[in-house]
């Protein structure tokens, strides 16, 4: 079990030149009445393995949708690599291919094959004619197959996506995101419904890819234990607010907001209500 180290130095998180994601007092709403997020401040350094933990309905998925420009805040500012995320913003649209997004619902195209689903991640690199005739360059097909063996999908190339098990579908969505060669990976509860062994397998895989590609990973989890195990930073969201952010370095936990919690207390506070 990790030990807490008292540090009350919140400025530590703010003084850094290499912030890939910045959120400033972000509010957002689906129905212009209730706010799903209320005044979120985040600042994430390049290469971080960032975890977001919180109860169901606390706003975790919404936070990720804001980061990839599929939603826009009603108040506050967001910068991804100094660009405001919004699908209608030309400059951001050009960098969307560098953001791998694995939605909670996975978003696979049911009636095409596993290989085609994964190759969708390579579409921004194709010419108009190549994509019209589904003529993927041999190098892209090889890359897709390499990623497939990495995530344990070898031999399932020609399976239609609707014929896969839940875990297999998840792997396809992960492979599609990796196929993008992303610099940022947004993953929404991709291991929550998997058994322990598979969950750890997938987490190791992403941790591995993260180190190799200097990826910034932002992963939503239900399970505080898993978050503490893999992340350098964990943010806890409750009812649309960030109520805690801790840094994890080896066996040390640095609490940026309160500075007076220990690991057991954190686990106790968030293990119950983070379970479904």
């Amino acid at each position, binding site marked *: 079990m990790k030990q807490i180290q008292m540090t009350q130095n919140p400025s530590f998180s703010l003084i850094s030149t290499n912030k890939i994601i910045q959120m400033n007092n972000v509010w957002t709403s689906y129905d212009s009445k209730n706010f799903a997020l209320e005044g979120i401040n985040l600042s994430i350094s390049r290469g971080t393995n960032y975890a977001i933990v919180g109860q169901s309905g606390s706003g975790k998925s919404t936070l990720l949708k804001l980061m*990839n*420009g*599929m939603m826009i805040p009603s108040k506050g500012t967001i910068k991804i690599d100094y660009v405001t995320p919004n*699908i209608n913003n030309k400059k951001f*649209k*050009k*960098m*969307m*291919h560098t*953001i791998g*997004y694995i*939605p909670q*619902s*996975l*978003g*696979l*195209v*049911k*009636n*095409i094959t596993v290989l*085609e689903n994964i190759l*969708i*991640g390579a*579409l*921004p690199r*194709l010419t*108009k004619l190549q*994509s*019209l005739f*589904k003529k993927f360059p041999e190098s892209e097909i090889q890359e897709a197959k390499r990623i497939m063996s990495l995530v344990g999908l070898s031999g399932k190339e020609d399976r*239609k996506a*609707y*014929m896969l098990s839940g875990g297999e579908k998840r792997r396809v*969505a992960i492979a*599609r995101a990796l196929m*993008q060669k992303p610099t940022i990976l947004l993953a929404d509860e991709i291991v929550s419904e998997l058994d322990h062994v598979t969950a750890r397998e997938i987490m190791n895989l992403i941790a591995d890819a993260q180190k190799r590609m200097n990826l910034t990973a932002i992963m939503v989890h239900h399970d505080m234990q898993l978050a503490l195990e893999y992340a350098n930073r964990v943010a806890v969201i409750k009812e649309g607010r960030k109520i805690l952010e801790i840094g994890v370095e080896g066996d040390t936990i640095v609490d940026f907001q309160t500075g007076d919690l220990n690991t057991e207390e954190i686990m106790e506070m968030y293990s119950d209500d983070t379970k479904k």
Partner: protein
Amino acid sequence: MTPKNNIIIGIIIALVVVASYNVDANPLEFAKGLPNLAIVAEEMFLVEPKYIPTALWAMFETIQMAFIGTVVGTAIALPLSMLAARNLNSKYVYAPVRALLAAIRTFPSILWAILFVIMVGLGTFAGVLAIVMYTVGFVAKLQYEAIETIDSDPMDAVNSIGVSKWQLIRYVVIPESASHLLSQMLYMFDYNVRQTSILGLVGAGGIGFYIINYIKFFEYGKAAIFMLVVLVTVLFIDWASVKIRDKYIIKSQHGMKVITK
């Protein structure tokens, strides 16, 4: 049943009676006319069998017209449906396209046939053009509705990769709506065979052309033979399209096997 329901049913029945009076729809006349059917049936048996090959050939021509009309009409409808889908376009694109399609649909195929007879003259080509127009109007509507019901999850997920509109259509919209399109084409072909059978009434070719001519010269028996051929053909197509749908379409949509006895 509540009293309120009774009142509504009463009103509907009263309306039917009033409307029947207005349009001279008298059930007694219908009963009186029934024996006339016997005359037609009797005449049918007197018709020489040599007319049957002609009837079959006319039916074959009709089916070909419906086939061309369905395929060409669907090919034109497909791009229009992409433009009319609200989840793919801005209002400035889909609103005018929808208005155009609605205008096309207000004409029944027989009116299109009259228009094309005036344009290109009597004959089967006018009939084919009428079926094309009718098919465009309907398949485009059915198809844009199908596109709008595509699950938004894969659309959003693929959009968030930063793909172009064309890529989205090619890799999500078409695969996810293809089974609908196939089923609509089948339905449309089935329907077009029936429609084409009557376009002959206005001189636009097909088996209806024979039927109307025999009726004009009071040769009801011959007309009835031709109508019988239409009936049998339509029943057959109906049966075949159910089979095809079960075998290919339902299965591909839900990934399950349909149990057939």
